[in-house]
């Protein structure tokens, strides 16, 4: 039986509780694989986990230099499960989640968004395994920004696709997976110059996404203020921000508490899933 953890959107069961908002200055970077999971063998001497970490570290430094905070799923060769990666990201409520992978087959960068069908209706709770469905529209917006940057800044020919690659389906943030393949001329994904070009483009894309999100929030606040002025105080001054509908990340409120259980000896953020909450299994 599939285990379901539950995350409660702010408009649902958790509406009465304090609802933390999106951290607009934070980007979650997930270097794929690590530790006992080497990923693909890119060559006799290189394994995917190391190349992923190199690219993610480079990107982290560049994003930090631009004033963005970065949360990494791993900074070394640790084993981190998909559940732990999603848990870290969902706790932090980042503006964007970027998953980094590399491969020795194919050509150029592949930009992937979850293969889940977009969920547009209001749900009382998000099933852990398909939580990304409510964010697919935003993820496609982020994908578009990244593709533009890879095309115009890095002068590459990205290919977009939809696929379910753990932990992307469990992320409650606009999430894009980048898989870097060699480019013509035998330039491998581990090539430093190639990685620098890609990191430059990704940095520009994420900064643009950040700016776009802040603009959308400012506009939404102004609109909410204008709507509130004739009947001041009618909503208790909470100032809820509506979805801008512009493709920028909407400030969703998600409470992942039921899924969290502190692992023995583990970091607080790296929580393992608790026993299934069972609400969504009630149909069985």
């Amino acid at each position, binding site marked *: 039986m599939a285990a379901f953890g539950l995350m409660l959107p702010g408009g649902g069961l958790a509406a009465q509780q304090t609802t933390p908002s999106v951290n607009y200055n934070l980007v979650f970077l997930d270097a794929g694989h690590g530790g006992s*999971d080497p990923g693909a063998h890119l060559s006799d001497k290189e394994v995917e986990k190391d190349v992923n970490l190199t690219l993610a570290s480079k990107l982290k430094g560049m994003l930090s230099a631009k004033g963005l905070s970065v949360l990494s799923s791993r900074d070394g060769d640790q084993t981190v499960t998909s559940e732990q990666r999603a848990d870290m990201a969902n706790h932090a409520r980042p503006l964007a989640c970027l998953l980094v992978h590399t491969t020795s087959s*194919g050509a150029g960068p592949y930009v*992937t968004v979850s293969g889940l069908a977009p*969920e547009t209706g209001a749900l009382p709770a998000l099933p852990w395994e398909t939580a990304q469905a409510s964010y697919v529209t935003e993820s496609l917006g982020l994908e578009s920004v990244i593709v533009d940057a890879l095309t115009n800044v890095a002068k590459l*020919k990205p290919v977009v*696709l939809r696929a*379910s690659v*753990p932990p992307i389906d469990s992320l409650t943030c606009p999430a894009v997976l980048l*898989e870097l393949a060699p480019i013509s001329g035998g330039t491998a994904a581990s090539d430093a110059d190639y990685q620098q070009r890609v990191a430059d483009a990704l940095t520009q894309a994420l900064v643009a996404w950040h700016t776009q999100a802040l603009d959308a929030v400012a506009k939404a606040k102004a609109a909410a203020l204008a709507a509130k002025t004739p009947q001041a105080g009618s909503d208790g001054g909470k100032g809820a921000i509506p979805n801008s509908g512009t493709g920028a990340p909407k400030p969703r409120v998600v409470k992942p508490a039921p899924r969290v259980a502190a692992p023995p000896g583990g970091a607080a953020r790296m929580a393992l899933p608790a026993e299934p909450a069972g609400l969504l299994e009630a149909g*069985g």
Partner: protein
Amino acid sequence: MIPRYQRVLFWSLVGCILLMLLFLLRGCEQAHKRLTGKGDPTPLTAPIATALETVTLDLASDGDTSITPTQRQVALPEEPTLRARALLEHLLGLYAAPGSAHPLESGPAIDSVFVLTLTMAPGGPPDANRPDPNHLDSFFGSHAGGQVAIVNLHGGFADQHPSGVVVEALTLQSIIGTLHAALPGVEEIRFLVDGRTRETLAGHASLLRAYPAVDTGNRPLVPLSDEK
């Protein structure tokens, strides 16, 4: 009287012969294990004379990351599960052929395919007319009368599959599209490896979720160079 040195030499040679014999037997044993490990232990069904029929295979291509529906003439059994297994074996056999656009290792790939018909829809009202494409549990996602295909892959196939987001996604899309064309009544497809759930095919593409059975040939991956 045989000299002592000749006796020593004789018994030394006999000892060497015995050691070589043991070494040979051990080598044969290991080779036999290696060969039978790759073999398909599934009992063969009795051959049935069936006519060739036209089937649609959704063929993947790594070069342009596309899925192309292709018509082929294949002899298939009538029984749906055997039919699905034979069809998928044929599809994956094409990928193992030299010059394949989506090269995979040769060897048995499909252990079995189960096609289940739901008699009730426990996850929703009886008149639900559309399965939830995101639902992880097939039995909750499909509606009454709908079919769920469970593809049980060989562990060796998954272990030897090339690792990568695109290459794994293409394999799954190819299987899903081909099954959808052959068995249009199937609404969802799930994957097992050696009868057990497994997180990913080869480190990337998820095998835990239920995939909606759709025509993947009509929803190919999008190369931006062609789109723009």
